[in-house]
């Protein structure tokens, strides 16, 4: 396979968060529209300054991205819609970067957001996918908690991870979230409280689960010269990968597509795992965090539990990770959950965090994981952002 070309002078800028709400009566268009408004505000660009748009949302239906163009009255020469859940941020970034690089667009707004009315989550879970509707939801309608319980129980049995290992990550993320103004969880979490939380789908506890909410995230992709002209702090896109349905013959998921692509990622970026100053993983369920530590090469397969035990994960710890608190402590605003890590990683390497700053963060690795179509997450992706 030929190595993919690099991203030249494509940069990422203007991290925007539309504050999360547990429930909201507003629709997805509101959150996505406010995200675009936030991007204009952050960049100083007029609406006409954006000529590309990339949208991710579960609750935009029956509209797709094109409907949103009229709703927001933006005229574009490039448009994409990325329905890949937790991988949508990475995939949107890759698509947008190539469009800018090739000259199909000059400034691409990447946005993700979702509404959350009181019954939204049940409705979207019941019809999440054809396979899920036919062969998962009828078995107890436990949603992703049950699917991830299978993977978690299998991982624990196979590699010796314990509840304390998962709890350590959740406690560290909460500690990070206490500095982040948009986190919906605002009280400290202790390991004892984690362990005492009720079982939802054994071995998944309440504090292993993300809380669905409404909100949006966004960022802009453009050439470095454009960012400098606008006076915007930016991060360089050093490398990015994606993979879909990576190991169809694995009877149960214990690894993700990163395993197949991480060497290409580090080669493209010209850095290795040791050069990463801050890691943002897709964290719906702690076992997926550990899977990403392994599959992105921070430790070997099966050594995740040991890696967790010998590191500390707070900002200022030996392995700063999910520095705004991740979805586990901020909330999961639908598809915006797949953008949260990019926006936070961008803030870290540009020194513009809203919460705690990792000192001298030059390289952020952001990872995405998404779409439990049936029994496993199908999409994986990762990107490395470098300080200017």
């Amino acid at each position, binding site marked *: 396979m030929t190595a993919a070309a690099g991203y030249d002078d494509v940069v990422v800028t203007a991290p925007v968060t539309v504050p999360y709400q547990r429930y909201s009566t507003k629709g997805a268009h509101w959150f996505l529209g406010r995200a675009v408004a936030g991007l204009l505000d952050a960049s100083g660009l007029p609406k006409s300054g954006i000529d590309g748009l990339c949208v991710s949302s579960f609750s935009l239906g029956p509209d797709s991205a094109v409907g949103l163009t009229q709703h927001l009255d933006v005229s574009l020469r490039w448009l994409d819609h990325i329905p890949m859940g937790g991988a949508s941020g990475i995939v949107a970034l890759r698509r947008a970067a190539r469009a800018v690089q090739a000259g199909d667009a000059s400034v691409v707004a990447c946005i993700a957001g979702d509404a959350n009315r009181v019954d939204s989550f049940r409705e979207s879970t019941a019809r999440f996918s054809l396979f899920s509707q*036919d062969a998962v939801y*009828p078995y107890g*309608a*436990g949603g992703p908690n*049950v699917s991830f*319980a299978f993977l978690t129980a299998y991982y624990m049995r196979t590699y010796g991870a314990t509840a304390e290992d998962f709890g350590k990550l959740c406690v560290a993320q909460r500690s990070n979230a206490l500095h982040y103004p948009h986190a919906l969880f605002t009280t400290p979490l202790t390991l004892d409280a984690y362990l005492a939380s009720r079982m939802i789908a054994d071995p*998944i506890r309440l504090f292993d689960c993300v809380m669905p909410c409404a909100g949006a995230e966004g960022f802009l992709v453009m050439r470095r010269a454009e960012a400098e002209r606008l006076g915007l702090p930016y991060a360089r896109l050093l490398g990015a990968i994606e993979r879909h349905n990576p190991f169809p013959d694995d*009877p149960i998921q214990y690894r993700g597509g990163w395993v197949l692509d991480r060497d290409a990622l580090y080669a493209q970026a010209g850095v290795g795992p040791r050069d990463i100053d801050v890691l943002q993983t897709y964290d719906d369920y702690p076992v997926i965090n550990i899977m990403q530590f392994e599959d992105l090469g921070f430790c070997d397969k099966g050594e995740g539990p040991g890696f967790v035990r010998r590191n500390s994960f707070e900002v200022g710890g030996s392995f700063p990770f999910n520095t705004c608190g991740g979805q586990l402590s901020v909330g999961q605003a639908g598809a915006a959950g797949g953008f949260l890590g990019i926006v936070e990683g961008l803030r870290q390497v540009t020194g513009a965090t809203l919460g705690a700053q990792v000192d001298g963060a030059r390289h952020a690795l952001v990872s995405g994981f998404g779409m439990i179509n049936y*029994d496993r997450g199908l999409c994986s992706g990762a990107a490395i952002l470098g300080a200017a």
Partner: protein
Amino acid sequence: MTGGVRRKNPILKTRQPTLPPALRSRVALGMTAGAAVGRLDLQQCEQCGTVQYPAREVCRSCLSGQLVWRPQDGLGTLLSETVSRASMELYFRERLPWRVGLVQLAAGPTVVAYVHAACAAAPADVRVEVALDRAGQAVLVAMPLDAAVTLAEDPRLHDMTCDPTHRKILVTDGKSEVGQAMVRAFAAAGASQVWVGHAEPWKQPPGFAALAELPQVTLVPLDVTDGQSVTELAGVIGGKVDIVVNTADHHRTYGIAGRRGVETAQAEMEVNYLGLLRLAQAFGPALRGRAADGDAGAVAWVNILSIFALANFPPHGTYSAAQAAALSLAQCLRAEMRPAGIRVVNVFPGPVDEPWNQLVLPPKIAPKGLADAVVKALKATVEDVYPDPVARDWLERWRADPKTLERELMAASPSSAG
């Protein structure tokens, strides 16, 4: 009322029935055909043999469009499992927690399945069976390898069955040999109450007097050809019946040319078709209303039909027509009972060993064999019952090609039903 029937607390609200999610893609409904008779079918590729799950439109391996449903042994390994203690659906919330797991079938695919309480913890060898859930949809259940373990032994999965134990049953005609056998079978199966319908009280067939001596039995007047009789009985016991077993049957052995006039055919339609309609109108709403009434609420409606409902058996031509009408109406009844989770079980015996089949050659199913098959079906989760070799032979031929079966039956004489 006999003793032992628990009375309902009048202060408590009668619970409304809830159902598990019934939405399926069209292709996934293919699993139902096997499940209706208790058989696990999965899609298999005609080109490369790959077994598929979940149901697909094209082969996951060679992308051929020729996927056919084939019986599977269900053997596999329980890879992982959970106890789901939270659910987004009312049906499951009312019955938490649920044991569910991922099973890798020896045939290839990994399936999500309910896990029977008797299964060892993962990893464990299991056998995946198919069942019809309360919504009438096919679901997979991981069972222990020990074939003696039944679905009903798991308290959660028991809810998918229509176990007659401790239930109150109406047998609409208890005088025929089939009706009498049915009453005895339900009494033996632990029914708490069996109401036995009898028309024309002056007729006392052999065995009927002894039947009335059974402690569970109460004789009730019921003539399914008389709307008032049906309505009156429904007014008295309709709100108590858990399972209706319609054994009312009028069977004569004529085609078209063998007898002038329509009186015989009319009588067959009056009992077999309109009788079912009268019963369904009078008892159906009451059953639907009690579908969630306590631990042993209304659960099922059983129609004793005939395999002749599938294709006309010319020597019993008008009877076959009445059975076809009854089957069609039973499908309507199934659709109307489904929102309450009441299972409509259609039973298609081949010739029963009773006087009107005197000239039909063996094998013929004995009334007791038919009754035992009905009880067994209710204890499982099937909805179509082909209880004997002749019935299964007809079914196989009908499934293969109804037109070929029609031509074969054209040559049939009274002594060649099979």
